[in-house]
C-alpha cells in the first residue's frame, strides 16, 4: 500500500509545473483567449517533451509511461490553465493505445505523439479540439467511438482559451466503437485537469486573502473566508484522491477502471464548479474582473464539468453498480 507518487513521477510533475509557470502564465492564457488561438510556441514545446504520448507505448512513439504520469501532466496543464491542445491529444492517444486495434494504433498514434495529427475528445455536441481534427474519440453514454476526420461546426464556448466543435451526428454514427475503457481513460484525463484547476484556484485564493486587507486585517483572517478556503481544500483533495485512484486502476486493475473513472468524474464534476466559484467569491469584486484571471479557472471548470457529463449521471451509475454488487453477494 503506497498511495504516493514515485520520485520519477514527482520529477515529471516538477518539470511540468516549472515549464508551464515560465511559458504559460495566466497572462498568456488571457492573450490566447483574446486572440482565440492556442499558444503555438507552447504547443511545440509540449510536443517536443512528448507529453502528448506520455501514456502511449514506445512502439508507437510514446514514452511508454502509464496512467499516473498522464494524470500528473494533465493536472499541471490544469494548474496552468494552459491554452494548448494537450488534454485532447494525450487523452485520445491513451484511449486509442489502450482500447484500439493495432491498425488504429498504427494509423493514429505516431502522428498524434509527434504533433502532426490533431485529436478531438468529448461528447459529440461539445468536442474539445474537435473542429478540423484528424481523429476524434467521442464519448457516447458509457462507451466511446473513434471517428476519423469528423465533420464538425466550430463552437465557441464561455472558455475562449480552448477550441470546441459540435460533431455531425452522421460522422459519429459511422465511427468505430472503442469500448468503455476508452471513455474511462478520457474522463480520468479530464478529471486530472480539474484537480490542477482546483489546486490553482486554491493557491491563488490563499495568496490573495492572506495579503488583501479590509477593516485593517487580512481578509483571510475572517472565519467565513478561512472556512471557504478549507472547503476548497477538501474538494480539491477529494477530486485528487479519486483521480489518482483511477490512474492507478488504469494500469494495475483495469477491471476496476470503470467505477474508478466514474468516481473520479463525479468528484471532479463537483469540484470543477465549486472550487473556482469559491475562488471568485473570496477575491470579492476583484475576482469578478477580467484582469484578475481567476475566471479562466471557473470557465474551464464549468466546461470540464460538461465534458464529464455532469455529476448526477455518474452518481446514479455508481449507486446502481454498488447495489447490483451487493445483490450479487460480494462484500
Amino acid at each position, binding site marked *: 500500500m503506497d498511495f504516493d507518487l514515485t520520485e520519477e513521477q514527482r520529477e515529471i510533475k516538477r518539470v511540468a509545473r516549472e515549464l508551464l509557470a515560465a511559458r504559460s502564465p495566466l497572462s498568456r492564457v488571457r492573450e490566447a483567449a483574446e486572440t482565440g488561438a492556442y499558444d503555438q510556441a507552447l504547443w511545440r514545446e509540449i510536443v517536443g517533451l512528448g507529453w502528448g504520448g506520455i501514456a502511449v507505448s514506445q512502439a508507437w512513439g510514446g514514452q511508454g509511461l502509464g496512467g499516473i504520469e498522464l494524470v500528473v501532466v494533465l493536472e499541471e496543464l490544469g494548474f496552468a490553465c494552459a491554452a494548448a491542445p494537450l488534454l485532447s491529444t494525450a487523452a485520445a492517444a491513451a484511449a486509442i493505445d489502450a482500447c484500439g486495434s493495432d491498425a488504429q494504433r498504427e494509423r493514429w498514434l505516431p502522428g498524434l505523439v509527434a504533433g502532426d495529427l490533431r485529436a478531438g475528445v468529448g461528447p459529440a*455536441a461539445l468536442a474539445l479540439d474537435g473542429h478540423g481534427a484528424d481523429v476524434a474519440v467521442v464519448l457516447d453514454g458509457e462507451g466511446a467511438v473513434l471517428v476519423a476526420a469528423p465533420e464538425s461546426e466550430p463552437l465557441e*464556448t*464561455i*472558455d475562449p482559451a480552448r477550441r470546441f466543435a459540435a460533431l455531425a451526428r452522421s460522422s459519429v454514427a459511422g465511427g468505430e466503437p472503442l469500448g468503455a475503457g476508452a471513455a474511462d481513460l478520457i474522463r480520468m484525463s479530464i478529471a486530472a485537469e480539474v484537480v490542477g484547476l482546483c489546486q490553482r484556484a486554491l493557491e491563488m485564493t490563499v495568496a490573495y486573502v492572506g495579503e488583501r486587507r479590509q477593516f485593517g486585517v487580512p481578509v483571510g483572517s475572517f472565519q467565513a473566508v478561512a472556512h471557504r478556503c478549507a472547503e476548497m481544500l477538501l474538494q480539491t483533495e477529494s477530486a485528487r484522491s479519486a483521480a489518482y485512484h483511477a490512474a492507478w486502476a488504469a494500469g494495475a486493475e483495469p477491471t476496476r477502471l470503470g467505477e474508478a473513472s466514474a468516481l473520479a468524474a463525479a468528484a471532479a464534476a463537483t469540484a470543477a464548479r465549486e472550487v473556482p466559484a469559491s475562488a471568485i*467569491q473570496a477575491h470579492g*469584486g476583484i*475576482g469578478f474582473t477580467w484582469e484578475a484571471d481567476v475566471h479562466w479557472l471557473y470557465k474551464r471548470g*464549468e466546461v470540464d464539468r*460538461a465534458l464529464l457529463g*455532469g455529476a448526477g449521471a455518474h452518481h446514479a451509475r455508481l449507486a446502481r453498480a454498488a447495489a447490483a454488487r451487493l445483490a450479487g453477494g460480494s462484500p
Partner: protein
Amino acid sequence: MDLTFSESELAFRDDLRAWFRAHAPAPEPQGDELAHFCWRRDYQRLLARDGWAAVHWPARYGGRGATLTESAIFFVELGRHGAPMMANVLGLLLAGPTIMSWGTDAQKERHLGPILTAEEIWCQGFSEPDAGSDLASLKTRARRERGHWVVTGQKVWTSGAQHSKWCMLLARTDPDAPRHKGLTYFLMDMEQDAVDVRPLRQITGSSEFNELFIDGAVISDEQVLGGVGNGWGVALTTLMNERAGLAFFLQVRLRQLLDRLLREAADRGLLADQAVAERLGELHVRAEVLRLTAYRGLTTVQKYGQPGPEGSLTKWMWSDANQRLTQLAADLLGPQALAAGGSWGYELLRARGNSIEGGTTEVLKNIVAERVLGLPKSR
C-alpha cells in the same frame, strides 16, 4: 392579511400593462454596449414622456407619488414585459431622491428634469479600491482652491460612468476630522479632462463598471449637496434609498429565467427525470419564497416605516437562487448553455457577481447576524 392588490393598485397595474402593451420594447441588442445603452435610454424617454419613468417621485417632479406597492408593481411589470431597466436607474432611484431631500431649490430645478428624461445620466462615486465595504475610510480628497473645490482620488465599481454627465461623489474635505466626519457629498460634472473613466472589464467580457481616476477635477460651491462636512449623512440617504423596487425587478427576472429553463427542459422531455424535476422544483420554491418574502418586506416597511428581518434576506436569497439557476441550466441544457455569446452562458458568468455586487453575501450575513439577530459583532 390580504395578498391581493387593492382596487387602486389594480387600476395602477392595469394602466401600466396597457401602456406596456402599447409600447412593446424593441428586442434587446446583443453584444454592442453602446447600442444596449441607447436601447435603455430611449425606452426611459418613452416612459418619462408618459409619466412612468419615476412613479415613486412626487407628481410635481414628474412622478406619480406611487406607494411602495405601486412602485413594486411598476418594477414587476417592467420585468414581466421584457422592458429594459431605465438607463438612468441610479439617477432615478438614488440621485433624484437624495437631491429632493438635501438639495437647494436651484439644485432641484437644475437636476431633476434631466434625470427623469435621461438627458443627463448619473453614476455613483462612493467605493474606492482600498475601502470596499468600509466607506468611512475613503481617501479621495477635495481641497479648497481659489473659490472652488479641487478633487483628487480614485473611485471604483462606478457603473455607467462612461455614459454619465454627473457623479454622486463622496470625498474627504477635512482630513483631520474623525473618519465619518469631514466628508462632503458633491455633484461632480463628469465632463472635464480631470476625470478619466476607465472601463473595468468583467469576467463576462463586458464592462458594466468603471474605474474613475480624478486628478484635479473642479467643483463649484453650487455643487455641494447638503453642506460641507455633512457628506456622511447625505450618503446615508442615498444608501438607504428605496431599492426595494429593484428587488422586485430582479425577482421577476429570476422568475423569467426559470420559466425559460422550465420550458426548455420540458421541450426536451427532461421533466420525466425525477432528479431534474426535483432540482427545478427546488429552484421554483426559491423563486416563490423570494417573491413572497419581498412582499412581506414591503408590507413591513409600509406599516412600520422600517424593514423587518425579511428585508435583509431578499438580496441574499436572490443571488443564491440566480447562481443556482444558471448552473442548473448549464447542467440541463449542456453545450447550448455554455456557448459564447448565448444568453445562458452570459447569465452563468454574470451570476458570479450577484453574491459580490451590492454587498457580498458574507457582509449581508454579518449584517443579519448583528443587526437583525443582535449577535455580538463578529470577529
